[in-house]
């Protein structure tokens, strides 16, 4: 998700609101952080966000206010742009991987199956748009994963590989992420709602 910082310190009103308006219009998706140096400007920018149906998070630090506004679906919109550019032929197929093995029964077999699946996925046309990993599924995206090579190749082709941050945290694997990016429940829900999704 792209981050954009907009410094409105020292601006006379309604400078901060005008600048925020422009930044929001120019950003298709991502987080915009506006910095102001007085409370009136903070309140005005927060009002502007609300009037445009955008939530805002505010933190005060040393007499300055940092207002964070999120626009768009974040990672997915970016993934679409990137995949289109790289391949020109991506579907909007999404895979939701809920564990680090495929199928129920023997875990040993499950590992074999997931390796096979990922390898086959490399041949599928068009390539999927996004692969989401949750729960033990995130283990597939970290160092030492049995399918790291496949995922890395898919990523280089513009497929978005997204692993749930909460899950990585739980397994204490955040620092071991080896392919793709960290995502959150909002993006996951938005993604599977908007696209055809296969859950594994």
């Amino acid at each position, binding site marked *: 998700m792209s981050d954009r910082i907009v410094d409105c310190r020292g601006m006379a*009103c*309604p400078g901060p*609101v005008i600048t925020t308006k422009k930044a929001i219009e120019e950003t298709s998706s991502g987080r915009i952080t506006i910095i102001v140096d007085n*409370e009136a400007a903070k309140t*005005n*920018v*927060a*009002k502007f966000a609300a009037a445009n149906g955008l939530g805002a998070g505010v933190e005060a630090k040393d007499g300055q206010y940092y207002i964070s506004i999120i626009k768009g679906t974040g990672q997915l919109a970016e993934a679409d742009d990137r995949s289109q550019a790289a391949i020109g032929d991506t579907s909007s197929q999404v895979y939701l991987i809920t564990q680090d093995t495929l199928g129920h029964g023997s875990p040993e077999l499950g590992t074999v199956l997931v390796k096979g699946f990922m390898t086959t996925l490399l041949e599928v046309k068009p390539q999927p748009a996004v692969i989401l990993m949750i729960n033990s599924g995130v283990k597939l995206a970290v160092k030492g994963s049995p399918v790291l090579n496949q995922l890395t190749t898919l990523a280089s082709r513009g497929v978005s590989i997204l692993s749930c941050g909460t899950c990585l945290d739980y397994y204490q694997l955040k620092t071991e992420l080896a392919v793709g990016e960290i995502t959150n429940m909002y993006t996951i829900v938005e993604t599977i709602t908007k696209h055809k999704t296969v859950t594994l």
Partner: protein
Amino acid sequence: MGPGDLAGVLSKLPVVQNSNVLVGITTSDDAGVYKLNETTALVQTVDFFTPIVDDPYLFGQIAAANSLSDIYAMGATPMTALNLVEFPNCKLPGEVLLAILQGGQNKVAEAGAVIIGGHTIDDNEPKYGLAVTGIVHPDKVWTNAGAQSGDCLVLTKALGTGILASAARANLFPNGVMVATVSMATLNAVAAKVAEGFTVHACTDITGFGLSGHVYEMAAGSKVAITIDSAALPLLPDAVEAASMGLVPGGAYANRSYLTTVTFAENVPEAVRDICFDPQTSGGLLFAVPAREADELVLALHSAGVASASKIGHITNEGSGEIYVR
């Protein structure tokens, strides 16, 4: 300057006693009144500020109307005025200054008064206004401190000029900005004339302190509590939407933190609250009249062309400046 800061500074000045001063610095009224003889009192006021619209001629008109307003708010008639001009000679062409002064002069002429002098100095940004002198009968002065329990409040112009001035700078809400500009350039002369036929207990004009601020001055000066009906407030078009979007001037927040005796009913929307604190430029007159005369006054104002005149609240009981907006 914030109201709190100004009050702090003024309180350090010694109060001078003079029996001819009918209205002086000690009460926060719109103009000073000095008795000359049994039939005539002199009324003096001064005001100037930086441009709130782009067009210099309109700026001159608005600044002049704003300065003259305080004379009308005392129930007086303007006679003479002096130009007060700050102008960046190096940065702006002389035509701009000419347009400002022309606007001012035409507005003063419209008021039946005359500009008899003035002063110009160089400054970083342009500022314009007038020092105005008027006359009134000593027994007919309208102060802002005579409101009584049971009186109704009548406001003659719509609110939201500060918010729309912000909108103008953001190039938004052109319709609201245009209506606001016309409203600001309108003299309070007609409204004052109409009200002379009624029993005015108190009068003030709504300017930089916002509606809440000037209502507070009236309430505190008259030692009463006042209730305002937010649904009855005349609002300039687009003002609510512009306020919701955050086009609220810093002055509104300054007024809000200073006016601690103003409370709101839960259902009053945030944007309307912002408008209540919004600093006005060349706003309308606010009259406190006996309840039985209020509706007639509003009708008379409408007939005279003061279309936005509205009954906006009433004096509830004795108090010390409590304002409740519902």
